């Protein structure tokens, strides 16, 4: 059994193929890097090519042993845990060696970091279900978030069922990807750069109404900034309507919210299936 560092393409299937290849080549992995994170080392490395067949075989085996482990693997891949690949790999190795029993013990040292990271992801997604703020521009609802974990796949079903008759998108500034939804179809696509257009008259009005509601609902005698901060950490405030400054509530002077016909090509989300209407909020800054 040789020790080895694996490199993969950063996709979930790629990660599963790392696990497959480590067994096929009888190698023990000491680290797994995605191509972009890798800094050259003196240790032997191997680049894993992604193979859909191998990936699904690994997943099927894990599912057979424990559906919970499969969920941990799928969700764990989305988290911002340090060295998530190698931790997930060790979880799978332990599962294949010992069976699913240890997954019941939350304090197990292989399980605990993964389960804690997945809880962090789920917690963040749960908070964002409430904290996401949409703006309506040209009939499309758009919003931006700055999460630590890749929450979009977790948020997808919630917002798709809530706004099934709407067209909407959620842009993840941290991971540069966006969830698009229109006419019953949702896709998550990488999106390098994006700037929200200024609000029109009606949108600015509803923002102002919400801000006024938010400021009024607090009881002055009970003010408790510490409690608010622990319930709603400040890192979420950046994208929430009620904490924006005055310019956020003033409508654009002209009809700037309506997209200019010749919007720059890079902004209008290329290769996105539900493209109709999506060009509206994606106008230039």
């Amino acid at each position, binding site marked *: 059994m040789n020790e080895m560092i694996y490199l993969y393409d950063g996709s979930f299937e790629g990660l599963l193929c790392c696990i497959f290849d480590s067994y096929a080549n009888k190698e023990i992995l000491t680290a797994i890097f995605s191509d972009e994170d890798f800094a050259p080392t003196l240790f032997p490395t191997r680049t894993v090519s992604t193979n859909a067949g191998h990936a699904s075989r690994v997943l099927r085996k894990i599912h057979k042993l424990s559906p919970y482990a499969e969920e941990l693997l799928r969700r764990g891949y989305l988290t911002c845990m340090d060295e998530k690949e190698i931790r997930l790999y060790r979880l799978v190795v332990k599962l294949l060696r010992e069976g699913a*029993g*240890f997954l*019941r*013990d*939350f*304090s197990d040292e292989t399980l*605990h970091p993964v389960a804690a990271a997945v809880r962090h992801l789920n917690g963040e997604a*749960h*908070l964002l*279900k*409430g*904290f*996401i*703020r*949409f*703006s*309506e521009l040209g009939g499309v*609802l758009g*919003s931006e978030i700055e999460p630590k974990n890749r929450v979009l796949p977790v948020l997808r079903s*919630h917002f798709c*069922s*809530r*706004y*099934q*008759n*709407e067209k909407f998108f959620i842009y993840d500034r941290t991971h540069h990807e966006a969830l698009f939804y229109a006419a019953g179809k949702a896709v998550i696509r990488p999106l390098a750069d994006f700037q929200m257009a200024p609000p029109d008259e009606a949108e600015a009005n*509803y923002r*102002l*109404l*919400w801000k*006024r*509601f*938010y400021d*009024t*609902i*607090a*009881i*002055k*005698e*009970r*003010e*408790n*900034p*510490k*409690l*608010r901060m622990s*319930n*709603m950490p400040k890192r979420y405030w950046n994208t*929430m*309507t*009620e904490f924006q400054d005055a310019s956020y509530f003033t409508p654009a002077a002209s009809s700037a919210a309506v997209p200019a016909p010749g919007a720059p090509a890079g902004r209008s989300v290329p290769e996105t299936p539900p493209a109709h209407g999506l060009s509206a909020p994606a106008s230039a800054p």
Partner: protein
Amino acid sequence: MDVLSKLEILTDAAKYDAACTSSGSRRGFKQGWIGNTSSSIAGCCHTFSADGRCVTLLKVLMSNCCVYDCAYCGNRRSNDTRRAAFTPEELADLTINFFRRNYIEGLFLSSGVLRNPDYTMEQMIRAIRILRETYRFNGYIHAKAIPGAAPELVEQLGLLVDRLSCNIELPSEAGLRTLAPEKTKTAILAPMRQIQNRRIQNKEELVKYRHTPKFAPAGQSTQMIVGATPDSDLHILRLTQGLYDRYQLKRVFFSAYVPVVENALLPARGTKPPLLREHRLYQADWLLRFYGFRAEELLDEKTPSFDPRLDPKCCWALRHPEFFPVEVNRADYEALLRVPGLGVVSARRILTARRSGPLRVENLPKLGVVMKRAQYFLTANGQMADGLRFTQDSLLRNLIAAEQSQLPQPELQQLSLFDSAGLLREATP
């Protein structure tokens, strides 16, 4: 008056209502409708206001004009304040547009009594009807049943909304007589009983006919004001337990009284709201609902109010040394729940974790056990935490110290070495 000013006045008038929950009603999407209700067991908070309370619903009054003159209420007839009323159309438009922007989970509609209870309820029903039938809004709605309104109107409202509630406000009849002379206990309890009976009937109907319209599927709740009347914690907690037992309420909310009007019968303006007392009552409420405690165990005639220094569960544990220590590898779920520092989640985790091997003390923090409280009351494999020594006295001191950091601190005053300004001037030339 424009909608912005109306919203401000009617939010300001509604903010003392503590209830703001969106859980208990699981409704997926319906074709052609907008919205669903939260699938999470805890509902969904959309923001937290400056006082740290969750905001999940658009909490407003239909109107803050009121024919009643309840002494504790800011909307009382004799109070000189700005008055406003939403039209049903305005309110429906506001709700749907807030909902589409994900500002809120739904609507929480209450109202001052405009002309008479029936007329008020009719206005509320009209607004909610527009929301449900014209906008086809499928999200969460919580409405207040106005005491004294006709049962037919309560019935209509219950079929439109997810949760109904009817506020008791003052926990004793004596309090009602002096502070809210137009309200009676029977007028408040009658709609509560009606809602309870109707829900039981609805459950039977749903077994027979799957598509029977649901009546208030998220149940009913109520609210009591704490600190406006001299009622003791024991009295309030007994009443709470009675409401859970006899009326099958989902929640009882407590609202620390904030003096909004000057009245000889009430605490003076500027009195701080009894927030710690409210906090202790909520802690006890959780013990009643999830931990299998009864009101008599927590308080009795000799100690009719909670200890401000310690939470009710710790107090109970200190009074019952014979129950402890609890062995985490053998104790059943109910016994685990009685250990301070252990909650519903950590108790469940212990139950599953110990199936794959005996637990040791080091494992417990990872399972979510709060050791600074729990260590005095449990053993793992017959052993307590390493190096732990305590007596009955030091145990109390340690527990109080552990709790101290979480309580609101009294305002500290900077002591000065130089009590006269003259000395200070000499010292700094």
